[in-house]
């Protein structure tokens, strides 16, 4: 992998660093700031020597400084690209979004960086290049002796590559600080987690809508249909061809209803919304073919997202237990302590559950992670299997 920053390039191959483009990038990074600062200060200085009044000079100077500061922010981001090629949260590709997000911060940091610290950039470059430069130019010194005229350029030529290191190091540190201020990584990561949670929320809302639509629409009509067919059957002479046809239609409509009921049930259980996760988990455990012992102690309701996740985890885990574990009983424990919901689902089955083998467990872990939680699994061959979900439930104590 190619290094993405000056510091990486330096650390990865200290000698190879000299042959790369990185020393030049570092030099460009430091000089660009220094030159800008110099220009700004010369502009201000020039104003005071110009034949205008002192007040006019002060006003003009303020204008120049404000202008320079305003330019400094965008400049700082362009400069950073010289010393740091890593992706900056799409900042360079998708326009100046971070800048708009915290424009004041960018402008302020840019002004301080270029106008104040910029002098240090310049000083580092001058000192690093100045010494070898002075030695290289030794033969031109009128006072130089013969050996100085020979040794000077040799020492200078040897020192010149060495100067690439302090320049690179300083540029690297400055770029790292700039990056930390302008593109805080934590914020990007939090943003990703939040957006994933939003996606889960959106799915959940959508599921609930579908459930309601089916409940209010198709299901009611089917019930009405079976009722009509049932009533029609009453009026037909028993055993007639028409009665048989109607009876068959009646049976078909009832089958459709049963299927629809199971479908709706799986989409989003009403009891979860109305009575909370304790009741919903009790219901789903009641339908599980493997007897489940419940030990749930959650006072009151938890945030909706937490309840949905906990319900989803329980439903999936029970399905897995019924399908694969061979267990003859299981145990569900839930507690909310210190703002953390801990949900344990344990069975006495054959164990050996492996997230790598199927997508079910991975999906479960993903779902829990989206709620900012984590999943732990212990499933030695021969069992027992313990699946634990820990989800922040935003409640200080039990």
């Amino acid at each position: 992998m190619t290094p993405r920053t000056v510091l990486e390039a330096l650390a990865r191959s200290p000698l190879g660093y000299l042959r790369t483009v990185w020393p030049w990038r570092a030099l460009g990074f430091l000089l660009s700031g220094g030159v800008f600062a110099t220009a700004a200060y010369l502009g201000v200085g020039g104003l005071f020597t110009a034949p205008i009044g002192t007040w006019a000079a002060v006003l003009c100077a303020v204008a120049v400084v404000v202008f320079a500061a305003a330019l400094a922010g965008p400049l700082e981001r362009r400069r950073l690209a010289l010393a740091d090629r890593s992706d900056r949260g799409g900042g360079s590709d998708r326009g100046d979004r971070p800048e708009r997000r915290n424009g004041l911060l960018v402008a302020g940091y840019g002004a301080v960086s270029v106008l104040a610290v910029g002098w240090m950039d310049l000083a580092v470059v001058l000192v690093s290049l100045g010494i070898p430069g002075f030695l290289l130019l030794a033969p031109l010194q009128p006072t130089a002796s013969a050996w100085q005229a020979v040794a000077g350029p040799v020492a200078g030529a040897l020192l010149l590559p060495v100067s690439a290191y302090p320049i690179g190091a300083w540029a690297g540190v400055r770029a790292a600080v700039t990056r930390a201020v302008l593109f805080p990584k934590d914020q990007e990561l939090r943003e990703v987690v939040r957006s994933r949670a939003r996606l889960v929320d959106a799915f959940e809302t959508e599921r609930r809508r579908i459930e309601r639509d089916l409940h209010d629409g198709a299901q009611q009509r089917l019930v009405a249909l079976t009722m009509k067919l049932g009533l029609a059957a009453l009026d037909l002479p028993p055993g007639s061809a028409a009665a048989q046809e109607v009876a068959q239609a009646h049976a078909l409509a009832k089958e459709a209803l049963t299927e629809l009921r199971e479908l709706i049930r799986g989409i989003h259980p009403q009891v979860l919304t109305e009575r909370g996760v304790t009741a919903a988990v009790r219901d789903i455990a009641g339908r599980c073919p493997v007897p489940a012992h419940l030990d749930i102690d959650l006072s009151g309701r938890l945030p909706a997202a937490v309840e949905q996740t906990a319900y989803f985890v329980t439903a999936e885990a029970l399905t897995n237990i019924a399908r694969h574990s061979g267990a003859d009983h299981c145990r569900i424990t839930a507690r909310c302590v210190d703002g953390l919901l801990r949900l344990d689902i344990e069975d006495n089955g054959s164990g050996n559950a492996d997230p790598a083998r199927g997508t079910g467990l991975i999906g479960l872990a993903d779902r829990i992670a989206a709620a900012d939680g984590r999943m732990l699994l212990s499933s030695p061959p021969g069992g027992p299997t313990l699946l634990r979900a820990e989800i922040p439930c935003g409640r200080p104590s039990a």
Partner: protein
Amino acid sequence: MRPSLRIVIAEDAVLLREGLVHLLQRFGHRVLAAVGDGPALLATAREHRPDLVITDVRMPPGRADEGLRAARLLQSEQPGLAVLVLSQYVEQTFAEELLDDRRGSAGTGYLLKERIGDVEEFADAVTRVAAGSTVVDPEVVRQLLARRRDPLDRLTPREREVLALMAEGRSNAAIARRLVVTEAAVAKHIASILLKLELPPTAPDDHRRVLAVLAYLRA
């Protein structure tokens, strides 16, 4: 001949509401009012004082469990009011809430909405609930039976059938008809079931028997 009942219906789906009215009238009952939401149910039931209230669980305004809440409230206000709650699918929790706070000898029923399709059975359930029985949807019973395994394993398949019918609130005579056996045989099965499940010998009252069985299944 079945007695004619005075009934208030609450169901928000118009098609179904009309159908229910038609069905109940077909079986000789009087529908005093048919409304579409929780508050209207409370108002009309208080005004008409019917024998029986038939209500959907989920209704406006909140589209949550207004029907169930209204039914429970009405039963606490009007002792002896029979209530039949219709649900789109089985919610053990709702069923239990309804059965747990039943008072006195008022009939209570919890059925899946789709049972309406079996019009004669549904009409039968309506009559039984109005007469003070407890009627629980076979699906609820099936789920409870599936949950409680261990001691139920001791029952013979025939005894399990009898138990399920008992839990649905059927009388010995009805169970005998259903299984095409004599009533005496049913009584023998029931005695055996109660013995195996270590339930106290129950009064001949069907209703208390149902509750005992349900309590056992839910334990």
